[in-house]
């Protein structure tokens, strides 16, 4: 019987992988459902096993069974791992993804699974924490805080009840690495969490997954049930979000697990000291925890040698949006933005020129191609007024209206604001309104009203309300937009309100022409 491998990843299914799998089953093949290899332009991908070799075909439709099986299909890719997209990667975390049956304990064990956990359990907790520290692993959720330092704090906190919480509330547009890992290699995350539990003395863990990821939820739940005995006495459960982006913020996530409104807590106290249910808690992103088995199995050194500056190890970069070869690309830090977008991503899917890329999700900055020589590195991005975040890169072609994207950033913040702090709660809504005025003024240019002075003290402001009192001109509104962004950036309680100014201001700074400004200032970057 011919064995074929077809992804069960949600993206693959969205592209029709289930129908393809059914067709191969109907043709009498043994179909093994794997995770996704991570290159969506070749999905649905079918790999046919032949004398220990896996020959890839893709994209493939249900009608293509015969030609695939006889090898005549025109989308024959050969050994998938040899494709340039894969050959250039350093797959530490995603080594098994797309290759194994994600819910086969046997597959997992045969592909180096559990080696990290076994190694960790043979060591005293402090040694495990030391290894994580030595690896240079930094939190992959966005802030880039050293994981080992966090673990040390929890290890040292005195309590009978400590928790490991995995933040799998991957809500950033342009990112899907967490989802892919949970669907494609769930035991890896489980192993990472069990190691964390051993390292800090926690007995129970939670994986908080957003409800928009039904496949990941199902995969994790099944994997937890299958591996319960292997990780015992450590125990795990999945908690499902309910449509709140802000719950990706770690303290809001903790409140959500506790059954509360997912509002952001003020820090301090740090979750490491008073986290879930007030107890010391390790809260890490999926990719941070999933990197841990490799570090323990291969040694901290193996991980730390890869990377750039203070950003050590690999980063699973996600290429998204209007990009030809979208997908997941795991690589050591230091690769430039331009290489990722153009060389690996192959430019836009539409074939039009790239105009902007947004890095790090809805709270990340927009960069023009003029800045494509930026190396992928936490510090370099911060310096350039952006952030790596969860390493999602969303590509836009030249049809994009950056004022519209700035408005959308504010709108998204308004939709997802938890409503706790004022800058985010009111500011995001005002931001949409200001952007509407800017767009209206831009589109009806050059109607900048005559110079008007808006003096007036509070007294005046508080006692009269005339709708047309404000200056709705471009200049005044742009100034107001900058002031609002300043208030939000420095005044907000968490990154949702605090980082929304990044996309807004970067759009304004790098694409002023979309905001009705007279002259582009692109040259500066070049």
């Amino acid at each position, binding site marked *: 019987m011919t064995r074929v491998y077809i992804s069960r990843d949600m993206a693959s299914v969205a592209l029709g992988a289930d129908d393809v799998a059914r067709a191969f089953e109907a043709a009498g093949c043994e179909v093994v459902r794997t995770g996704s290899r991570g290159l969506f332009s070749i999905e649905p991908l079918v790999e046919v096993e032949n004398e220990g070799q896996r020959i890839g075909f893709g994209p493939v439709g249900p009608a293509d069974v015969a030609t695939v099986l006889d090898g005549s299909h025109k989308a024959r890719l050969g050994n998938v791992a040899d494709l340039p997209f894969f050959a250039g990667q350093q797959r530490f975390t995603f080594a098994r993804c797309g290759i194994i049956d994600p819910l086969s304990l046997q597959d997992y064990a045969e592909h180096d699974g559990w080696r990290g956990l076994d190694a960790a359990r043979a060591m005293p907790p402090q040694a495990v924490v030391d290894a994580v520290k030595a690896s240079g692993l930094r939190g992959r959720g966005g802030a880039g805080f050293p994981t080992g330092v966090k673990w040390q704090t929890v290890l040292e906190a005195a309590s009978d009840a400590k928790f490991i919480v995995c933040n799998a509330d991957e809500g950033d547009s342009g990112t899907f690495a967490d989802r892919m890992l949970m669907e494609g290699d769930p035991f890896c995350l489980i192993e990472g969490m069990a190691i964390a539990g051993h390292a800090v003395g926690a007995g129970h863990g939670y994986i908080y997954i957003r409800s928009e990821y039904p496949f990941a939820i199902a995969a994790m739940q099944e994997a937890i049930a299958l591996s319960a005995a292997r990780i015992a006495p450590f125990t795990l459960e999945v908690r499902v979000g309910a449509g709140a982006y802000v719950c990706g913020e770690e303290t809001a996530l903790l409140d959500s697990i506790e059954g509360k409104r997912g509002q952001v807590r003020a820090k301090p106290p740090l979750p490491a000291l008073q986290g879930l249910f007030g107890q010391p808690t390790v809260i890490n992103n999926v990719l941070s925890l999933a990197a841990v088995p490799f570090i323990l199995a291969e040694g901290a050194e193996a991980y730390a040698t890869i990377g750039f500056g203070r950003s050590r190890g690999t980063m699973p970069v996600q290429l998204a949006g209007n990009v030809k070869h979208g997908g997941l690309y795991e690589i050591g830090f230091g690769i430039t933005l331009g290489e990722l977008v153009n060389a690996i991503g192959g430019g836009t899917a539409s074939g039009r020129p790239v105009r902007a890329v947004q890095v790090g999700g809805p709270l990340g900055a927009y960069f023009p191609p003029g800045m494509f020589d930026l190396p992928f590195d936490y510090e370099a991005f911060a310096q350039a007024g952006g952030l790596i975040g969860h390493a999602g890169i969303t590509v836009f072609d030249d049809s994009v209206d950056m004022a519209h994207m700035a408005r959308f950033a504010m709108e998204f913040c308004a939709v997802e604001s938890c409503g706790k702090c004022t800058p985010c709660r009111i500011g995001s809504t005002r931001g949409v309104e200001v952007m509407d005025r800017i767009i209206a003024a831009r589109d009806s240019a050059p109607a900048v009203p005559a110079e008007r002075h*808006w003096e007036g003290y*509070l007294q005046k402001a508080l006692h009269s309300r*005339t709708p047309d009192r404000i200056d709705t001109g471009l200049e005044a509104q742009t100034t*107001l937009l900058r002031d609002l962004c300043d208030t939000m950036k420095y005044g907000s*309680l968490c990154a949702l309100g605090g980082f929304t100014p990044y996309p807004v201001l970067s759009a304004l700074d790098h694409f002023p022409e979309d905001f009705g400004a007279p002259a582009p200032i692109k040259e500066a970057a070049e």
Partner: protein
Amino acid sequence: MSYTRETDHGTPPAIATGKSVTLTIDGEAVTMPEGTSIMRAASLTGCSIPKLCATDNVESFGSCRLCLVEVEGRNGYPASCTTPISEGMVVRTQSERLKQLRRGVMELYISDHPLDCLTCPANGDCELQEQAGAVGLRDVRYGYDGATNMGQAKDQSNPYFDFDPSKCIVCSRCVRACDEVQGTFALTIEGRGFDSKVSPSQGQDFLSSECVSCGACVQACPTATLTEKKVVEVGTPDRAVVTTCAYCGVGCTFRAEMRGEELVRMVPWKDGKANRGHSCVKGRFAWGYAQHRDRILHPMIRASVDEPWREVSWEDAIAHTANEFRRIQAKYGTRSIGGITSSRCTNEETFLVQKLIRQGFGNNNVDTCARVCHSPTGYGLKTTFGTSAGTQDFDSVMDADVILVIGANPTDGHPVFASRMKKRLRQGAKLIVIDPRRIDLVKSPHIEAAHHLPLRPGTNVAMLTALAHVIVTEKLYDEAFIRDRCDWDEFAEWADFVSEPQRSPEAVEPLTGVKAEEVRAAARLYATGGNAAIYYGLGVTEHSQGSSTVMAIANLAMATGNVGREGVGVNPLRGQNNVQGACDMGSFPHEFSGYRHVSDDAVRGQFEQAWGVALDAEPGLRIPNMLDAATDGTFKGIFIQGEDILQSDPNTHHVAAGLAAMECVVVQDLFLNETANYAHVFLPGSTFLEKDGTFTNAERRIQRVRKVMAPLNGYADWEIVQLVANAMGLNWRYDHPSQIMDEIAALTPTFAGVHYDRLEAEGSLQWPANDAAPDGTPTMHIDGFVRGKGKFVVTDYIPTDEKTGPRFPLLLTTGRILSQYNVGAQTRRTANEAWHPEDRLEIHPADAENRGINDGDWVSLKSRAGETSLRALITERVAPGVVYTTFHHPDTQANVITTDYSDWATNCPEYKVTAVQVMRSNGPSDWQRDYAQQARLSRRIAPVEAAE
């Protein structure tokens, strides 16, 4: 004490660790306790950081973002409310940059806020307005045509305050106050983001929500969103007087805020050590009775109770009273008259009434309403510990690990203290409830008792002895404590007694109806769970075994070493505002102030010397004995100050017969109460707002009552008693209550250090306050019991003679409800009627079904003492076989049902156990109709003649 508004330091004090931290704030070196927020540290240093969401009675929240500061070496601008100080920190609270950020935030606030300051009820008293000025907001550049949350409908459902969501800034202070301070969790934020709104329960109006109208949210609100109706109606206050609430035994301190001569609102005072800035629906809002049109403002007399009242001058009324008492004594003997002091009046007034009786009447026929509530506490704790009072202050509960509540319903009876208790329970303390009813503490949002022992009414002693049985037989007692602090032989004798097999949980299970295993678990928790504190109420005392129960409680505390430090003890929750004080002041017929027996020659000698008369060495009559003597014809006259014995005392028929048999009943009260229906002289009383004095709360805390307004009736109560005394030939010359307190201090060792100037300086003092304890005594029996060795008393379970049987198969127990107070004379004359317009009979669904009773049906409630009718409330709060009602409404007259059984030692009535039958009925009973008719006739006041 300053009467200005208290400074809000923004965040609560740090939890004491003993360590302190030195930092620099705006260039000044400051040392503060570790854990203090930057905001609080700055405020205490005198520099104020703008804030809106922070207020120091709830935890910091960090939402308004006005309080941002600069900290050297740190990125960004941390919120000063949520950032704790640290060693060497250098903080700047003011800079151009900070001003810019704060202005930016304020601009956003004002962009979603109505611009109607001039017509807003909070104008001049609004934190948003104040902070907008403070951050120098000049203009709102966002305009006013964007999205807003304005224009939402006002919720005016609560009788005392309005909710205007248009003015809400979503700071969550109300929500947090409801959660953290009150512990009701009635408020939430609905929705999220820009659409976030404060919502009572499920987006309902306040009245139909879970809100208990404690006022914490109104207090917390920084804008006009939650505003007292009275402020809207009268305007913002312009002066204030700090005083003590006249409702329950918690003794909350309030700031009475006035506009001219009109009381605008009562605001809980943060420095009040009993309430710590919290309040309940009664003290906060239900003070309207003080100006109610039912108040009688002129003295009245009549020859017979079937005549209408006739208004007379004060002179005539006083002279008439004195003449009548003298006439009766001349005719029937010195001991033929007596009096009742009021637990609602001040210590000074109470002291004067008992002095009038002992000095002026020449006998000891004085009693007080503590007779019917906590007299067993006095007896029981005096016998075991040596002091007739609770052992702790309220703060102590925050150190308790196990809280045992027996026969008390704090969330209804002592709501402000209950909120503290609930806070401690939410922090993790364990709770044991011993009560026939499933009171709210057993299970309410975020609170759940570890053990509820729903015992059959009347079996307290059996239950407590069973707990003792477990503690002794499982050797869970604290031998070191007992050997050190008690008499070991007495303990051994008691231990033998409780260890007898017939007292085990298993043996008494058929009596108490509580599973033995649950009793054992509760006993183990109490004995081994850390600091264990017992709180009890009238469900302990108002039994034929009230005194035994109190002693059984004391035994448990001693056996487990839970006396003499913070977090433990035996704590009676006193009913009325000054019931502790009334007892302290010598209101009982057998003792002088400070609980000293009248037969003690040395003590009596002191009083004789001070008062210049010979005093009676024999105890006087207790209230029920006075009434017995009256029906027998030997007791003919009584002076009753501020108590409505007809409604509050058991067996109404017996009370009525006693009163009817007297020749001169003098009632001094605010209203023509039920007892006044049998009175010949009515002397109008004054409210707590109209006089100076002191109240003593359940934690022995003596607190000042301050005159807020002139007495509407012309005199404060103490002045009236003085007039009566002088008309009877005494020569009293008090110009101010402070002089009365000086006399009390001089004659009462436990009060020796209590003087008004000290109370002004300290705010309050807890007795004993004397040379041995100059700062008063928050916790008693620290180094030894007042009586020397703690005394274990064998408490045998003697069942009450009140038994159920075929005629009266159910057990009635009585109690009260949050919104009403005692006989309801005050609260029924306020909008609190909205929550509890009538007394209802709680009955278990099974008992109701057997009788064909539906929820809301009229039912007759009948005991061997009497019968009344009321409407049924079907609920599983009561166990099958038990029914429950309140006694707040005179038209129900629940005490028509209660019997004349009483505590063996103190005659405290057995309110809590009456065998009854319940049947469907068509409405009020004949007796209720007759009584209503009679009351109407009795309350007639003859029109004043035109010529005058």
